[in-house]
């Protein structure tokens, strides 16, 4: 579809604004008035202008650190945009995200990422959410489109492949827009792939791929309009490659010594701004004087905004700790009592079923979950709530978690399943760099209400790659909530709380617990509230997950010797119920910290340090840690039992602590 004259003029104005901003920022940096890492989009402004003009205001955009042109073209106001780039309080993220992390949901800008390729799975999730807006399937004609903008360098990272495959498989209304500027960081296109055009890769995913002149806003506009129309009509994604050039290299100060000077000279000869100006004059759309006036207006506007922004305040000191996570609902989510004891597995299924029945926004995704999931946890849910809400995925952990992040940004409450915790390595970027940080980096604008369920096979003799408790990887990242239930009632209540929570929660399911039965009374279990599973006066075992039951067994055996052990089940590691820990150990004056994970660098170290710091004068003995030995979990049953922290090692530790001091 060809653009009309008004659209042509609008695209020129957008390009003028990008060029004016770029020049002003480069001047501000070289004068030393501001210090920032600046990734100039100059040379790529025609791509952004074409995309911006082809999209609706409510369409979603996901872009990258070299994204100022995209942000301006999508309609992000200059003032909060430049303020964020310069670290000021009135920035899009209150100055906490910076130039690589601008978001402005009012203009559909849902994510700017500093990590190459990571935006693509998130875009797929946004597109999925858009198909569900306004009810099942939505009205195709009204459907929002999501554009994922990325560079040629990103087409070599796994996230690109996983996202393209998933989006094509699910026929999502997404447009993968590769701004091929000839370089991935400092490596030229021909030195990072043998494919002639990035768009050639589209065929591998079963979607159309087109290559257009990215220095011609009209060509970009037409390609994006066509792709957006297809997407809105439910015909799935398109890979659009816009061939362009970055005129100032990778980052401000890049001397471009890796670029052939003749190539750069030629690129400047074909730079989009002068070319479009000439064309509009030739076609009688915009005269030379009008063009000059438009460019002068853009420069003047930018100068005024930039002056104000530079004079604006930096963020308050309080902002350091604000927006890391939102508050967890202290009330939790109650449910009707269940008759008779049920298993942890059934309790998890129940929580998912109840959440899906209560809230249309709750959706599930993961490998093989539509039938039942590898451990039968999701059995029956697709039948009860529809296959559209219980989605099987390819074996693509980055896409699963990235799509969950995007779906959460798009208004859904996704519950993603990663089959084993050992596979978190595949998707840690999505979890730790995106889910965990998007609330903070956006100054609270884009929280990520998602749940990641994952199983741990320790104790099942399934070997070192299906057995690890890796909660310490997660508790170390501010922004994630981490939950490990030990009973059916807690599993039901905690999972319901996770789904209702506005932050990313990781819910850990130890497989050896799944068949353990207990009464589910439906009492709410809010996040951040520990539970005394057994009262005692002589020593506290601080623990969580299946080790709670080991601790209770050992406590029973010691009771026969007149020793009363208190067993404190943390239930959630983040947020941690410090008050309960200190209250218990403050009374018993002795503590052993127990978990299934390897002791070295484990969450127990955090607990032991916290207890020692707060109760140094009260403790009668050092806080001992009991956990797995520092080895990959061995396969042979006898060795696995030796490596894991069984009741014997706990008993030994308790006896040592009880014999100390006093």
């Amino acid at each position: 579809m060809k653009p009309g004259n008004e659209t042509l003029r609008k695209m020129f104005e957008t390009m003028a604004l990008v060029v004016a901003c770029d020049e002003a920022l480069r001047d501000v940096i070289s004068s030393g008035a501001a210090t920032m890492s600046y990734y100039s989009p100059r040379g790529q402004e025609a791509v952004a202008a074409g995309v911006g003009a082809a999209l609706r205001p409510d369409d979603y955009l996901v872009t990258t650190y070299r994204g100022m042109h995209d942000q301006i073209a999508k309609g992000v106001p200059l003032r909060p945009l430049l303020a964020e780039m310069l670290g000021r309080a009135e920035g899009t993220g209150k100055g906490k995200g910076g130039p690589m992390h601008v978001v402005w949901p009012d203009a559909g800008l849902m994510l700017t990422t500093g990590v190459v390729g990571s935006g693509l799975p998130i875009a797929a999730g946004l597109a999925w959410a858009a198909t569900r807006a306004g009810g099942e399937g939505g009205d195709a004609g009204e459907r929002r489109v999501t554009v994922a903008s990325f560079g040629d360098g990103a087409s070599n990272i796994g996230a690109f492949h996983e996202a393209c495959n998933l989006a094509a498989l699910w026929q999502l209304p997404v447009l993968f827009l590769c701004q091929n500027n000839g370089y991935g960081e400092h490596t030229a296109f021909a030195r990072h792939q043998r494919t002639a055009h990035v768009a050639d890769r589209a065929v591998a995913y079963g979607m159309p791929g087109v290559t257009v002149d990215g220095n011609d806003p009209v060509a970009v506009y037409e390609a994006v309009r066509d792709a957006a129309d297809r997407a809105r009509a439910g015909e799935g994604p398109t890979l659009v490659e816009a061939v362009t050039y970055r005129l100032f290299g990778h980052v401000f100060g890049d001397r471009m010594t890796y670029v052939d000077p003749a190539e750069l000279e030629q690129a400047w000869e074909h730079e989009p701004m002068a070319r479009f100006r000439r064309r509009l004059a030739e076609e009688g759309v915009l005269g030379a004087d009008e063009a000059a006036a438009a460019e002068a207006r853009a420069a003047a506007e930018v100068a005024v905004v930039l002056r104000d922004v530079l004079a604006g305040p930096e963020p308050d000191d309080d902002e350091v700790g604000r927006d890391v996570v939102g508050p967890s609902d202290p009330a939790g989510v109650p449910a009707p009592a269940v008759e008779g004891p049920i298993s942890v597995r059934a309790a998890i299924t129940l929580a998912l079923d109840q959440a899906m029945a209560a809230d249309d926004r709750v959706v599930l995704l993961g490998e093989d979950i539509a039938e039942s999931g590898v451990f039968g946890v999701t059995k029956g849910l697709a039948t009860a709530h529809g296959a559209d809400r219980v989605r099987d995925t390819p074996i693509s952990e980055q896409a699963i978690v990235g799509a969950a992040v995007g779906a959460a940004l798009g208004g859904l409450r996704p519950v993603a399943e990663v089959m084993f915790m050992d596979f978190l390595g595949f998707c840690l970027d999505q979890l730790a760099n995106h889910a965990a940080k998007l609330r903070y980096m956006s100054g609270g604008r884009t929280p990520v209400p998602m749940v990641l369920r994952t199983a741990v096979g320790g104790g099942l003799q399934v070997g070192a790659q299906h057995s690890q408790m890796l909660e310490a990887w997660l508790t170390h990242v501010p922004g994630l909530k981490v939950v490990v239930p030990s009973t059916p009632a807690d599993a039901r209540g905690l999972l319901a709380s996770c789904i209702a929570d506005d932050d990313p929660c990781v819910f850990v399911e130890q497989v050896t617990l799944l068949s353990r039965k207990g009464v589910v009374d439906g009492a709410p279990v809010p996040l951040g509230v520990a539970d005394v599973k057994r009262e005692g006066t002589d020593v506290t075992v601080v623990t969580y997950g299946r080790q709670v039951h080991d601790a209770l067994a050992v406590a029973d055996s010691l009771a026969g010797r007149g020793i009363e052990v208190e067993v404190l089940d943390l239930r959630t590691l983040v947020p941690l119920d410090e008050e309960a820990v200190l209250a218990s150990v403050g009374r018993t004056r002795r503590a052993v910290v127990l978990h299934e994970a390897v002791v070295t660098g484990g969450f127990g170290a955090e607990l032991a340090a916290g207890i020692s710091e707060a109760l140094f004068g009260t403790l009668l003995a050092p806080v001992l840690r009991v956990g797995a030995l520092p080895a990959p979990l061995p396969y042979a049953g006898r060795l696995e039992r030796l490596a894991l922290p069984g009741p014997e090692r706990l008993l030994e530790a308790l006896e040592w602590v009880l014999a100390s001091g006093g």
Partner: protein
Amino acid sequence: MLLRLPKMGMEMTEAVLARWIAPDGALVSKGELLYEMETDKVTNEIASPVAGRLRRIAEEGATYQVGDPVAEVVGDDVS
């Protein structure tokens, strides 16, 4: 306009003012190269963001911190 030593790259904290390109007191135009700075990583030529008369502040061969004044370019009514 007071010109300070710019930060060129994530890890830069200081640089040597390797060489003045524009003469002290010269009328410089916007975009004209003023000086060359050298870090452990790279040498960069810095252009004037405005037009005016150059007053050098920094000395050749000396090391400056990011943000230290290096020059002033006075008046933007000349080209």
